[in-house]
């Protein structure tokens, strides 16, 4: 069991997963049990601390979308969107509605890519009893092929709008460097129709999995927009009365350093841990989902409030339906903008932006000087916000498992962490090669 250790000394048991597989990035979880009592839970992120906030200082604001796209290989669009939202607030730029539409459309591409990967390749093996997608592929070839095709369709949207499938290069403050023609987008329609229909079928498949009996009293936090399921705009809402403009983020939330993690933990100042991501969006914005998504969710017995984090795999599949349906709606409406981008004179100021990354709310704040250079940057990713909540889930979930073997407890803890699809660092990769005799 590579990177994992389960030990028993007297009546104390310690479950340690040093290298948490099937999450994006570097994470570890450590759970200490004494008898049947949980003594400690630590979810650690041991990637080097994010250097991007410092790295951005002194750079021109126009460089920001391309730099922050490099933070994450899975959700570069989210980083770009939160950044341009913040910077456009400083410069008082109102973008063309067609540009807003294209931003929403490229975000759909990212959601399709990310959710297809997580639902089928990362999370499904837990429910189906496989250690990984490779072993799952041998018996559930159809799921892997479905994931590959869905992800490719998401990639195509990214290529048409962003110039390439990863780290898009066409997004800028005020709009896009290049916008697609109507024909470029129409060429994607057949694939998106297939993706939507397949996603509806996928909701039914994953809704039939076995879910642990585990519900929690969460504070869900998500963006909310009067008429749209949240992607790139809205106020920050929660089910416990939070209703603020994005610019009030630091007044309500605080980041804290904890010893066992290199990423800051984020808490609501008054109430502690909270949950961002698909479950939060679904529970707070169900009525904004397209009818096809609402209908299949209801049919599968998933409706707000959904309080079981293991059912997030179903909610992600519902959001896949949304992303495909929304992409089709946007393509049908699209008329190219009069100009791909608008410019505005530089002025000093501070701006806040947020958008809904596949894993949840991503907040950015920038301060720029009169030359347009970044003075300060603050980036609060969704996984940092969920860290404390992940620990809280494990504190409450592990007592249900104490009759199991340590290996089984370990596997269940990993599954519980993957409920959050944590995106821990992203954007580096290399291989360690071993020769097998």
């Amino acid at each position: 069991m590579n990177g994992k250790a389960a030990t028993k000394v007297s009546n104390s048991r310690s479950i340690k997963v040093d290298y948490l597989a099937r999450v994006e990035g570097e994470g570890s979880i450590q759970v200490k049990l004494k008898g049947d009592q949980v003594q400690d839970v630590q979810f650690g992120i041991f990637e080097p601390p994010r250097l991007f906030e410092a790295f951005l200082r002194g750079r021109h604001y126009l460089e920001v979308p391309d730099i922050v796209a490099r933070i994450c290989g899975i959700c570069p669009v989210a980083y770009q969107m939160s950044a341009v939202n913040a910077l456009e607030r400083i410069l008082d730029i109102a973008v063309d509605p067609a540009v807003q539409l294209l931003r929403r459309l490229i975000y759909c591409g990212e959601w399709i890519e990310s959710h297809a990967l997580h639902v089928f390749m990362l999370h499904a093996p837990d429910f189906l009893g496989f250690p990984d997608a490779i072993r799952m592929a041998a018996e559930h070839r159809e799921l892997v092929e479905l994931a590959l095709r869905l992800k490719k369709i998401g990639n195509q949207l990214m290529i048409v709008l962003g110039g390439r499938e990863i780290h898009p290069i066409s997004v800028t403050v005020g709009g896009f460097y290049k916008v697609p023609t109507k024909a470029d987008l129409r060429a994607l329609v057949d694939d998106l129709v297939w993706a939507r229909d397949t996603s509806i079928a996928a909701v039914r498949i994953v809704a039939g999995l076995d879910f642990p009996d585990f519900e929690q009293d969460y504070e869900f936090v998500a963006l909310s927009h009067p008429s749209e399921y949240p992607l790139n705009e809205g106020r920050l809402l929660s089910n416990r009365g939070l209703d603020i403009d994005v610019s009030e983020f630091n007044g309500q939330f605080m980041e804290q350093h904890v010893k066992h993690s290199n990423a800051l933990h984020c808490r609501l100042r008054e109430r502690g841990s909270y949950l961002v991501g698909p479950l939060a969006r679904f529970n707070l914005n169900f009525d904004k989902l397209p009818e096809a998504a609402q209908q299949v969710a209801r049919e599968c017995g998933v409706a707000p409030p959904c309080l079981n984090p293991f059912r997030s795999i179903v909610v992600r599949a519902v959001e896949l339906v949304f992303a495909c349906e929304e992409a089709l709606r946007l393509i049908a409406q699209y008329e190219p903008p009069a100009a791909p981008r608008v410019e505005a004179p530089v002025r000093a100021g501070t701006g806040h932006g947020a958008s809904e990354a596949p894993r949840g709310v991503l907040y950015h704040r920038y301060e720029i000087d009169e030359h347009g250079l970044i003075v300060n940057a603050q980036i609060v990713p969704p996984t940092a916000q969920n860290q404390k909540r992940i620990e809280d889930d494990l504190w409450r979930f592990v007592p249900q498992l104490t009759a199991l073997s340590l290996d089984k407890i370990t596997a269940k803890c990993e599954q519980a962490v993957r409920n959050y699809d944590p995106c821990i660092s992203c954007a580096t990769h290399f291989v360690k090669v071993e020769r097998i005799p």
Partner: protein
Amino acid sequence: MLVVCCGNPDRGDDAAGAFVARRLREMGIDAREHSGDALSLIDTWQGADEVVLVDAVVTGRRAGTVSVWDTLESPVAGRPRIGSSHALGLAEAIAISRTLGGLPRRLTLYGIEARRFEMGEPPSKAVLRGVERAARKVYEHCIDQRRPAV
């Protein structure tokens, strides 16, 4: 032949693959830069007869060392997750592709030994020297394949 060079140019030694791609293009070889995302790799090499992959690797050798593997003959084993942010990597891509039946006939990996992966940092001098060596080896590999058999 398809030449695919994986890596993140803004993350220390992980830039090795991207730098090799750029060097190869200067030498007249059509080399693609790629994020290394497993599912996308499977799609990229689908239908190709021969593929050359270039990537940063960690095997414990000296930084910048260039190693070559015939990945279909000597499987690229799984590894501890340390350092990687990709949920699925090259080893998984090969294994899944093998299961689904989409592997190329030949898949050669040129690995450049890497050590440092800080965000926003350039690759080390040792790795840059490795990039040059790897580019020459891949160039020769490609030229050899183009020569008619005698």
